[in-house]
């Protein structure tokens, strides 16, 4: 469902993503981890077609993002870490706009909006202007908009920031059930416990390179460490950092 083939992305002289290859199947929940500035957000922007690769190819749902981006985006939903809402629309008006954007019929739209309002418990504020929403309320509204058109690929960047424990629990259940129902979930996060609990596979990226990818068991094997994901993550990223420093010294 998601294919990245030797993808490189540079910003001027800086390489943000370096020869990244990845294949994620339908119904898989893939957690994408990495330190700050590792290239996670750039990878997500490449997956949404916001940025184009300097070299390599990105395909989602069988569509090349650079040549058939509009078709690819029809099957994608993207939830950024900083949710965007029109401040002068109510939550309900925003959901209607999104439904129309995806070409949903009116009856289907009304029914789905009601479902989302119930699912994300938005009824108390859905008819207020979104400028009055807290971060958590915005995040829940954005999630309901993302699921409104029943996407086949859900790309989520740092979803739990600013959410209360009940909302985090709701979100975790939601992401897992989406994957179980056949949706491909690409989850970028710093919350290692969420990745550990939910992910089918985990990819760790550092300095633009995919340094490890597989199930938690596979990652433990690579790190030669039988600890938590946090221990594995720290060991793998520290080793890469030392390797890079070593390469720099020898150069």
């Amino acid at each position: 469902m998601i294919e990245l083939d030797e993808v490189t992305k540079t910003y001027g002289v800086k390489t943000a993503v370096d020869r990244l290859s990845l294949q994620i199947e339908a119904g898989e929940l893939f957690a994408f981890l990495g330190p700050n500035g590792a290239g996670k957000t750039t990878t997500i922007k490449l997956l949404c077609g916001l940025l184009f690769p300097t070299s390599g190819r990105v395909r989602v749902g069988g569509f090349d993002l650079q040549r058939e981006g509009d078709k690819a985006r029809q099957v994608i939903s993207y939830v950024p870490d900083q949710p965007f809402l029109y401040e002068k629309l109510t939550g309900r008006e925003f959901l209607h706009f999104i439904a129309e954007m995806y070409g949903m019929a009116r009856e289907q739209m009304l029914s789905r909006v009601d479902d989302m309002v119930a699912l994300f418990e938005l009824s108390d504020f859905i008819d207020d202007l979104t400028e009055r929403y807290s971060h958590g309320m915005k995040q829940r509204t954005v999630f309901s908009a993302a699921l409104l058109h029943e996407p086949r690929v859900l790309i989520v960047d740092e979803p739990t920031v600013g959410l209360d424990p009940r909302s985090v629990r709701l979100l975790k259940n939601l992401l897992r059930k989406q994957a179980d129902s056949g949706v491909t979930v690409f989850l970028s996060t710093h919350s290692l416990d969420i990745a550990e609990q939910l992910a089918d596979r985990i990819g760790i990226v550092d300095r633009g390179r995919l340094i490890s990818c597989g199930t938690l068991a596979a990652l433990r094997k690579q790190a030669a460490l039988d600890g938590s994901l946090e221990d594995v993550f720290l060991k793998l990223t520290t080793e890469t950092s030392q390797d890079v420093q070593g390469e720099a010294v020898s150069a």
Partner: protein
Amino acid sequence: MTLEIPTALPSASVAAPLRSPWLFQRLRWRLFVNSGRAMVEASGLRLFVILICSTVVAGCVFGVCDVGFTFLRDKRLLDTGEVPEMLFDLLFFALFMMLVFSTGLILYGSLFSSAETGFLMSMPARADQVFAYKYQGAIAFSSWAFVLLGCPMLVAYGLVGLPGEHAGEPALLAPWYFYALLPLFFFGFVLLPGSLGAALCLLVVNFVPRRRKQIMWVLAITVIGLVSFWFYSVLSTTRADVWSRETAQALVGRFTFAQRTITPSHWMSRGVISAAARDLDQTAYNLALIWGNGLFLYLVTTGLAVGLYRRGYNRVATGGELRRRYGGHWLDQALSRILGFVDAQTRLLIVKDFRTFRRDPKQWAQVVIFVGLLCLYFANLPNIHQFDESEQHGGALAGLRTEWAERNAISLLNMGATALLLCTYTSRFIYPMLSLEGRKFWILGLLPLERDRLLWGKFMFAATAALLIAESLVLLSDVMLRIPLIGILLHVVTVATLAVGLSGLSVGIGACLPNFRETDPSKIAVGFGGTLNLIAGLLFLMVTISFMAAPWHMVMMPAEDGSYVTPMAVAGVVIGLLVGVATGIAAIMVPLQVGAAALRKMEF
């Protein structure tokens, strides 16, 4: 917690990309209605002030144009249509150029660096649809002033009418369809410069992505400079008898570049004049030219957007380095040294504010452009007004008096223009300063310093910049006009009072009515507090100039030719000065004290 999660669609259900052109129009309408409702609910006063100000501005433009066109009609300069055609050609040509750049710059901001376009680009919206939506917004934003100023001017032209064929006959007024067609002319015309600006923006972003902002600014400033230079060169060649038919004919020759049949400004002026003269064929022809070419250019630009918008978005996002390194700047160090007499904490706050301001070209570029234009005008004063020394020394007393009266009026008006610039500067940049600390304000709130110092730091930063700008401008104007030393001193004191008073008002009101939710300074400036600050500033400006400068200009300056001035008149000037200074001190102390009290009570 049990959740019913919807299942995903099967893979065969991929719909075609969106093709509903009305989706964004409905969005715009909904945003407009909700914004209007929120504005009325939150601040009816603000809406009232906006409507009143717009009506007053439109009324003033109508009044001035009515007087001007009546004068031209009475001088029989409207007979052949050459003079109004020249005036309209020039006006529409200048507006055309301004709209090209303003649309380009606004579109750049909204297409490539706004959160909204980032959101829309991740949706299945077609690039040309997003482009068209943002293009229409940019056109509306950049041309509202054009419509606000252009409509009353053309209405005045229609109401004044053409002179009757013989002396004593009533004027021939414009027909009803002249007024009905004006909006069609305006909306058709703005498509042309708007599309050119948009195409320029797309091409610059795609093919010169590294220095795109600098190129747009350099182009805009070059064009403004060239137009200003040409304008003053035209003025400087016109002599005293400017209202004669010969001078007018000579002037027409200066505008041939704007009068070519391929220039859209000429289609506009020909169309409007034909409509007023009841020439329906020419009216329809020029209107068709405007709309035909406008829509064609719009289609071409939108076609460009299909291939270039997403590509440009990618290039803007990745054209530069991932992280730009910022370091110390000699200007920061220079300011820190200049402020050596201020305590260290306040000095740090002032340098921080200066650094923030310096790193935001959108803020200071506007000040630079307006100050530059005023400098250009002041430096050209002797050329424009042709003050003749020989006439002054050897001419008749009447000529000398006319000369002095002209200098007197111009120097007062120039000081008024400088004061208005100051008022705009403090309303637009100083008032939002405290609000811009935003949700980070708790950092300053927790610093081990008295909160009053935050305010005094911002006041000193504002007043230093305001003093430097205003005093330089007023000194340049006075030197160019050869105003006597006593007059220059009086202007320096008046402008200093205005600079520190307006700074005190803006900082104080900014502390009393902060808006920590908004991050855009222009939106903070047009909010309720900003509007109140602007009104207070304008009132202070009028009171200060009326008390401090106007008496001297009315009594003392005319007496420079040796006329007798009564002791009562001198006493009036001195008392006016003292009242002005006292008002200035009050404008600093009262708002800052009230603002400091509000700041001390503020919770973070």
